[in-house]
């Protein structure tokens, strides 16, 4: 048995929860039954008031913290979740799930459709952020959590947190939105379309029924990830990390990858293409494109936020150009206009959009201070 770092939640085991109450989606389609895979860290207190929901981003999943048996690398947000970390598992009960449509165990394109006995593939319905939130509310019911202490997410995860506060105003006390946006920009959608085209034009895609042919559209998924990855980094961050370094030290006058950045992107793309499902990638990018909670309120975000009850913590990163600080400020301005409680911080960071996953000291300080205040007020209520 290996020793885990002291501030790690240690060995974790996912669990799968079956839901057999049909879920009607925004598209009008219905999923008759589905599985959600989750992980939990920490202990739920007696009145179930210390629960935190973690919403994942585009390529995320339920494994946010700790280690799976035999793994060397911890979950994707281990830097923020654990004993003594920003989301302190000694004080909070943390729930992290793989969203509907995902490819890490929750029902999605690569899971078997119980009605046909075949993988859903392209027949899996398009899910929206609001659909996810609805399914997460059912998960909360299942876990006996009437009200989350906080719903927390970065990027697409932050969008889910924002949607939660609008759709279930009395079911969360705090909403933590990191490196997100109130809707995608035209440029964001354009990048997503390049990613989708790369996947669907891959000869191995087979209209999304590649499982039957026992192949995956590897090249397409790899290209999609490469273009995505460029948008996650800042220009300065990229230059600092890779510069114009050549692998062999000199130009080779052929088309093989020579610059470090080429090798890095290919490696990232390659790794992703074997670990992620192409149909899920298509779904996730659509969920991003469709997200626009103000659309139902005359395109006025402040109106959409009129009935929210929770307090907000919004954070952005200076070099993030995928969801820039201006986009977070749109959320903040709307919250101020609606007269809601909000704290906003803009973190100096060179890492671009990826910064939300990196334990930058200032980021962890303010995030930790906010979470600490939530925990303090919980414990004060209990002491009373």
């Amino acid at each position: 048995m290996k020793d885990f770092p002291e501030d790690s939640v240690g060995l974790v085991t996912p669990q799968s929860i079956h839901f057999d109450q049909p879920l009607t989606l925004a598209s009008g389609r219905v999923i008759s039954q589905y599985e959600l895979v989750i992980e939990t860290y920490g202990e739920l207190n007696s009145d179930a008031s210390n629960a935190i929901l973690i919403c994942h981003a585009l390529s995320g999943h339920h494994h946010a913290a700790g280690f799976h048996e035999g793994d060397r690398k911890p979950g994707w947000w281990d830097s923020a979740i654990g004993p003594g970390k920003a989301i302190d598992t000694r004080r909070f009960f943390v729930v992290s799930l793989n969203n509907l449509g995902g490819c890490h165990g929750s029902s999605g394109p690569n899971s078997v459709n119980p009605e046909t006995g075949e993988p859903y593939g392209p027949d899996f319905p398009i899910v929206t952020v609001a659909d996810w939130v609805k399914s997460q509310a059912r998960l909360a019911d299942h876990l006996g959590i009437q009200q989350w202490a906080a719903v927390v997410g970065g990027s697409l995860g932050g969008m889910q947190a924002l949607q939660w506060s609008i759709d279930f105003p009395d079911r969360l006390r705090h909403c933590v939105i990191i490196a997100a946006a109130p809707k995608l920009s035209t440029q964001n959608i354009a990048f997503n379309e390049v990613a989708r085209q790369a996947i669907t034009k891959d000869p191995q895609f087979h209209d999304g029924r590649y499982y039957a042919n026992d192949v995956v559209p590897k090249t397409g998924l790899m290209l999609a990830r490469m273009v995505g990855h460029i948008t996650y980094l800042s220009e300065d961050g990229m230059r600092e990390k890779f510069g114009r370094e050549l692998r062999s030290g000199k130009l080779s006058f052929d088309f093989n990858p020579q610059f470090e950045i080429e090798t890095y992107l290919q490696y990232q793309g390659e790794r992703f293409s074997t670990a992620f499902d192409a149909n899920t990638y298509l779904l996730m990018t659509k969920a991003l494109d469709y997200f626009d909670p103000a659309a139902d309120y005359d395109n006025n975000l402040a109106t959409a936020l009129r009935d929210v009850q929770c307090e907000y913590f919004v954070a952005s990163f200076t070099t993030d150009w995928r969801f820039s600080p201006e986009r977070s400020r749109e959320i903040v301005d709307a919250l101020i206009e609606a007269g809601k409680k909000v704290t906003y911080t803009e973190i100096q960071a060179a890492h671009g959009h990826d910064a939300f996953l990196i334990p930058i000291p200032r980021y962890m300080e303010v995030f930790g201070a906010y979470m600490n205040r939530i925990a303090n007020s919980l414990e004060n209520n209990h002491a009373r």
Partner: protein
Amino acid sequence: MRADLEIIRDWIRPGARVIDLGCGEGELLEYLVKEKQVQGYGIEINPDNITACIEKGVNVIEKDIDEGLCGIRNNSFDTVVMSHALQTMHRPDQIVEEMLRIGKECIVTFPNFAHWRARFYLAFRGRMPVSKFLSYTWYNTPNIHFFTFKDFEELCVERNIYIVDRTVVDNEHKHRWWIRLWPNMLGEIAIYRITR
């Protein structure tokens, strides 16, 4: 609480919508929210102050006020407060305009450069005054615009800004009867309530 904040807080009515530009550690807002049930927001740029506000539970927005307040709608606040920060702004006149745009009423406090001690310092030592409230040297001071009560009031006249109230105090923010005799010479800190 800093004495000028004590004066300011009495000028704010219960339940008001308040924004404090350069709110520091958020002590004024914390008091106003607790005791006067205001809906309060603070704007701050100093990291330690922001953290202190988060710990207190004060709504704090990280923002450089010099970049303007666009994003905040016209007349969305009852009271806009700026205490001891106007002299640090690149364009104090534009900030005052912004404050009057987003709020119905503004409260501004700033140090008086025409205070007798400052005058003497410059007149006899021939150097830029250094005092308790202007405790920096010329090259590292955040106070980049020095102005006097008279200067500020002239700006108000030029821009059709109405002065509702003015209180002039010494550097301990105490009222002294003699300050009223010659405020621009004897007062160190002014607290103005302005509107349009």
